[in-house]
């Protein structure tokens, strides 16, 4: 089922990764200089005060030809990254689907629910400009969204997800092994598991546990199921909405998710956290992994991130990063002290939400709770 990339496909894909590095290093850095050395001092001189929010910065920066060119090339680079995958997949998708269909349920399982309503927040735009988005289902047995996602998300993360694209899941495992060394969950759920790349580390970390993954996109699940079986791991995949699942109350010891919150909505997110609470057994743990709130970043970083909302089909990204998550946790029924936000910086010691004075720290934010 693995795609067969030609010599030129591989060149094109390697080049898109290099191009992303170049855009980040040269163009983003240049735009920062335009902001810090020109636009910011000019604004202060004219207004007698510094910029107060990212909207003011955006309004001024959008007039700057350097920034215009930067965003224009960045958008093209994002589209060409996907194109380096989709053009070649189109040639071979029929053969790949035939092979995926032969995959047997010897270890895990796959349950597709064609009647599940697809929520608008996942379907109104093709998120990250991924052609077809997460939920396109071209035909019976379609795996194309999974094949596009698996290769594209590896490139999107510039390979930092690791060869198996499981860095987020692995970082939750590392956290659990460090903070809860005796925790031995028997039933684990990964919400919004996509192709299950970040679900697999839980199979390895807790070999005696039943591991479940739910996801909205049928073609992601079919691909993920075939991929997981080929890796020799057991995951039970089902097509379900994390806002309201068909699992029984108190049926999981551990519930996780990897970077799904910002792809939901203001209404769906509290429901997902409340559903997490409903599904957890007493004493069970939740660990939802996400990008940090805007308050943890300076105004320029906020402006850079915010551009993704408008230019990279990320409709909920900025709204999410402005939300008061502490309030959302409390409303979902987590009383004081049972849940908190926690930063795992890349390559540094952990930082808690009570000690986050330092801005712009890059890492994964965890929403952690014990029922």
């Amino acid at each position, binding site marked *: 089922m693995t795609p067969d990339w030609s010599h030129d496909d591989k060149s094109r894909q390697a080049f898109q990764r290099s191009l992303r590095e170049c855009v980040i290093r040269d163009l983003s850095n240049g735009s920062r200089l335009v902001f810090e050395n020109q636009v910011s001092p000019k604004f202060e001189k004219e207004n007698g005060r510094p910029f107060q929010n990212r909207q003011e910065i955006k309004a001024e920066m959008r007039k700057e030809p350097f920034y*215009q060119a930067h965003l224009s090339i960045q958008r093209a680079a994002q589209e060409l990254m996907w194109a380096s995958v989709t053009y070649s997949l189109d040639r071979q998708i029929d053969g790949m689907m035939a092979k995926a269909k032969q995959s047997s349920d010897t270890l895990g399982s796959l349950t597709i629910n064609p009647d599940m309503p697809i929520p608008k927040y996942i379907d109104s735009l093709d998120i990250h400009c991924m052609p077809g988005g997460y939920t396109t289902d071209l035909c019976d047995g379609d795996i194309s969204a999974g094949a596009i996602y698996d290769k594209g998300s590896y490139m999107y993360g510039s390979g930092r997800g690791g060869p198996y694209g499981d860095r987020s899941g692995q970082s939750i495992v590392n956290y659990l092994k460090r903070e809860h060394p005796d925790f031995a969950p028997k039933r684990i759920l990964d919400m919004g598991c996509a192709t299950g790349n970040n679900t697999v580390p839980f199979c390895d970390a807790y070999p005696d546990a039943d591991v479940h993954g739910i996801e909205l996109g049928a073609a992601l699940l079919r691909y993920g199921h075939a991929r997981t079986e080929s890796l020799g791991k057991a995951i039970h995949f089902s097509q379900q909405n994390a806002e309201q699942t068909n699992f029984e109350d108190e049926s999981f010891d551990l519930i996780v998710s990897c970077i799904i919150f910002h792809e939901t909505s203001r209404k769906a997110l509290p429901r997902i956290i409340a559903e997490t609470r409903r599904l957890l057994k007493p004493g069970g743990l939740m660990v939802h992994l996400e990008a940090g709130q805007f308050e943890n970043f300076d105004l320029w970083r906020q402006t850079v991130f915010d551009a993704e909302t408008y230019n990279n089909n990320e409709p909920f990204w900025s709204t999410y990063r402005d939300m008061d998550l502490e309030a959302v946790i409390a409303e979902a029924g987590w009383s004081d002290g049972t849940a908190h936000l926690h930063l795992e910086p890349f390559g540094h010691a952990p930082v808690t939400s009570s000690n986050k004075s330092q801005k712009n720290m890059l890492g994964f934010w965890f929403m952690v709770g014990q029922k």
Partner: protein
Amino acid sequence: MTETTKVRVPQTAKGHRPTFFEDPTNDRIMAMMTSMITEMWVMRERLDTVEALAAKKGVFLEEEIEQFEPDPDRAEERERMRQELLSRVFYVFQEEAEDIARGDTPESYEDAINTSADR
């Protein structure tokens, strides 16, 4: 789906494509240029493979090109070559960024002319 239907993998993303310049023609030129540099690299890398194989064997088969895997040194060299290509094509941004870092402006340029003209 019947046996004869060819599944078409989506190639474009749903959602209005943003533009950034006052004249969207400039955005189209940027997109075409970014795609063109990609295709230029694809040719360059293929040639590099041909050269590597030619040096190694003198003669080679086309399927050997498809199967060619660069060793770690060559893979590293290729990344260096790609970054050099990108730097060359996007040199104008480097020029501008360094102007900004130095504080060079049209006025400072004018000043230099005037200063040098002062005897």
